[in-house]
C-alpha cells in the first residue's frame, strides 16, 4: 500500500468520503515526507508554517484536505513570493492570485511555494537564487524547468499536486523529467491575475499532478473567466471528468515526422514508436501531419519572449517593491545597480537580448520577423486540425540532463524547448504524461497537443494511454544514496 503522500487526489477523495482517512492523516503524511527529503531535493523556496493547525473534520469541499504546492511566481496573500529571484527575495503579496483563491475556496491546503528558474527563465531550475532543485529520480540530474520545484515535489510525494506556469514548456518539460503529468491549458482558459508576468502573450498557469484524472480535477476548479484578467476568455467549461471516459476508437492522432530528426535521443524516438503502437491498439488512426515551420519555433519563441520580458521586467526598479542597491545616491545609478545585483545571469542575458531585438535598427529584422513566423506556426496547426484531433510529440528531445551540463551554453539549453514552445506561440492546450524510463532509470514524457479550448480531447487520449501503460504508477526510489 502506498503512503498517503504518494497517492492521487482521486484516491484520497475516495478514502476521505469513506472516512477511511482524515484530512489530518493526509497532511501529516505529506509534512513527514517533506521533512525527510526536502533537505536533498530543495523543491520549496518557502514552506507555509503550521499547516497542521486548524485542520477541522473533513469538510464537504471537493478539494478538502488536498495538499497543494504553488509555484513561487503565483501570488499568495501573506506568503512570500520570490519568483526565484534575489530582487523579490522579501516580497510578500497583499492578495491571492485568482487561481489560489479558487483552490482555497475548494478546500485545498497550500503547503508552500516551489523552486523555479528565476522569473520562469530556464529549462533546468538551475537559474534559481535559492539554489538548484534536484530530480527525485536521480539527485545528480536536473528536474527540468522552470517549474522544477512543482514537478519534483509531486514526484517525491512532497505534495499531492501543484500549480506551475508555462511560457515555453515550463510545466511540461519538468513534468516529463520527473515522471509526472503536466498540463498547460489553452491561453485564456485560466486567469493570470496574480501570476508574475514573464511574457504576457505566452504565459499560462497549469497543473502538475500524479495522473491525468487529477489534472482534470484541478482544471475543473481553476478554469474560469475572470474580470481581473481581460485576456481570460469567456467560453464554456466542459465537464472534464466526463470527458476522460469517452471512447477514443477512431480518434485521429497526428505525428509530425519533421519533429523526429536530429538532436532527438534514440531512447526518446523508440518511446514514441511504442506510444504510436499503443494508440493504434486502442483503435486510434495515426496520421502523418506536416508542421513545416516548426524549425523556426525556437528563434521566434526566444525573440518574442525576451522582448516581452525586457518590457515586463522594467518594473523592478527598486522603488515600489523588491530590493534596492543601498549605496547609490543618484536615481539612475540606483536603477542600474539595483537591477544589476538583483537579477541573476540568465535574466540579465534575456533582458539584454530582448532589448536588443526591440531596439532601433533591429526591430524589423528580429521582433517583427518573429511575429510573422508566429502567424505561420499558428496556421500550420490550423491546417493540421482539418485532418487530426490531436498531435503527439516527445515532450523533450532528451531525458533529464546532469546538473551543470548545459549552464555554460545557453543556446543548447534553449534547444531543450524545441517541442514545447509551439503550443505557447499558437496558444494551444498541451499535456505531458509519462511514457517510459531510460536504461538509466530516468522518466520520458509524451506530449499531446490539442485544438484551442479542447482540453477535453487531450485529457481523454492521455487518460486512455495511461490506463493501458504502467508508467504513471512508478515512483522514484527516495532511499537511494546518490
Amino acid at each position: 500500500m502506498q503512503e498517503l503522500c504518494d497517492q492521487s487526489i482521486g484516491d484520497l477523495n475516495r478514502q476521505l468520503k469513506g472516512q477511511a482517512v482524515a484530512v489530518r492523516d493526509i497532511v501529516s503524511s505529506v509534512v513527514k515526507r517533506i521533512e525527510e527529503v526536502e533537505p536533498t531535493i530543495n523543491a520549496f523556496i518557502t514552506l507555509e508554517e503550521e499547516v497542521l493547525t486548524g485542520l477541522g473534520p473533513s469538510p464537504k469541499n471537493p478539494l478538502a484536505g488536498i495538499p497543494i504546492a504553488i509555484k513561487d511566481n503565483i501570488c499568495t496573500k501573506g506568503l512570500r513570493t520570490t519568483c526565484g529571484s534575489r530582487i523579490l527575495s522579501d516580497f510578500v503579496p497583499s492578495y491571492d492570485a485568482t487561481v489560489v483563491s479558487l483552490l482555497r475556496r475548494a478546500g485545498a491546503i497550500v503547503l508552500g511555494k516551489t523552486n523555479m528558474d528565476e522569473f520562469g527563465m530556464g529549462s533546468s531550475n538551475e537559474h534559481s537564487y535559492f539554489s538548484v532543485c534536484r530530480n527525485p529520480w536521480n539527485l545528480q540530474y536536473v528536474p527540468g524547468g522552470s517549474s522544477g520545484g512543482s514537478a519534483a515535489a509531486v514526484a517525491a510525494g512532497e505534495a499531492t499536486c501543484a500549480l506551475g506556469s508555462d511560457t515555453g514548456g515550463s510545466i511540461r518539460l519538468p513534468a516529463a523529467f520527473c515522471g509526472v503529468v503536466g498540463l498547460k491549458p489553452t491561453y485564456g482558459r485560466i486567469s493570470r491575475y496574480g501570476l508574475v508576468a514573464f511574457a504576457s502573450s505566452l504565459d499560462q498557469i497549469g497543473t502538475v499532478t500524479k495522473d491525468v484524472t487529477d489534472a482534470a480535477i484541478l482544471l475543473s476548479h481553476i478554469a474560469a473567466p475572470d474580470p481581473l484578467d481581460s485576456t481570460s476568455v469567456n467560453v464554456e467549461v466542459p465537464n472534464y471528468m466526463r470527458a476522460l471516459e469517452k471512447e477514443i476508437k477512431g480518434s485521429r492522432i497526428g505525428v509530425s515526422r519533421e519533429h523526429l530528426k536530429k538532436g532527438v535521443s534514440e531512447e526518446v524516438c523508440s518511446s514514441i514508436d511504442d506510444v504510436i503502437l499503443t494508440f493504434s491498439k486502442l483503435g486510434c488512426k495515426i496520421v502523418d501531419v506536416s508542421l513545416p515551420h516548426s524549425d523556426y519555433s525556437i528563434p521566434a519563441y526566444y525573440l518574442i519572449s525576451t522582448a516581452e520580458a525586457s518590457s515586463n521586467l522594467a518594473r523592478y526598479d527598486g522603488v515600489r517593491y523588491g530590493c534596492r542597491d543601498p549605496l547609490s545616491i543618484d536615481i539612475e545609478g540606483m536603477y542600474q545597480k539595483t537591477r544589476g545585483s538583483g537579477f541573476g545571469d540568465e535574466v540579465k542575458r534575456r533582458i539584454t537580448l530582448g532589448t536588443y531585438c526591440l531596439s532601433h535598427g533591429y526591430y524589423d529584422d528580429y521582433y517583427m520577423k518573429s511575429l510573422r513566423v508566429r502567424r505561420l506556426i499558428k496556421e500550420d496547426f490550423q491546417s493540421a486540425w482539418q485532418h487530426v484531433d490531436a498531435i503527439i510529440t516527445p515532450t523533450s528531445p532528451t531525458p533529464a540532463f546532469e546538473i551543470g551540463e548545459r549552464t555554460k551554453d545557453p543556446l543548447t539549453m534553449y534547444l531543450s524547448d524545441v517541442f514545447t514552445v509551439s503550443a505557447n506561440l499558437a496558444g494551444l492546450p498541451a499535456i505531458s504524461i509519462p511514457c517510459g524510463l531510460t536504461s538509466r532509470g530516468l522518466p520520458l514524457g509524451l506530449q499531446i497537443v490539442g485544438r484551442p479550448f479542447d482540453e477535453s480531447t487531450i485529457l481523454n487520449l492521455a487518460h486512455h494511454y495511461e490506463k493501458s501503460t504502467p508508467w504513471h504508477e512508478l515512483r522514484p526510489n527516495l532511499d537511494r544514496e546518490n
Partner: protein
Amino acid sequence: VPLPDKEVQKIAGLAKLHLTSEEKRVFSRQLSRIIDYFNKLSTLELEGVKPLSHVADLRNVMRDDEQRRCLHTSEVLRNAPATYRNMFRVPKVIE
C-alpha cells in the same frame, strides 16, 4: 560578431542594467552565438505575412465606473524599500 562588448554596454544602458566587464565579455560571446542561430529566420520568405502579436481574439473589456474597494495605503507601501509618510522614497531626482 553581431554583438561586440561595446554594443552589449549600449543595450544594457537602454535596459538600465549594470553589467560588470566580465558579464559584458561573456554576454557578447553567448548572445552573438544565439543571434547567429536566430538569423535562420531570414531564410524564410515573409513578404505579405501579417505579424501576430497575440493569439487571443482580444477586445476591450468594459465595466461600470463604480467605486470599488482597493488596497489600503499601508498594504501598497508594505514591500517598498524606502517610504516617507504615505509615499515611496527615492534618491534625489531634480538638481
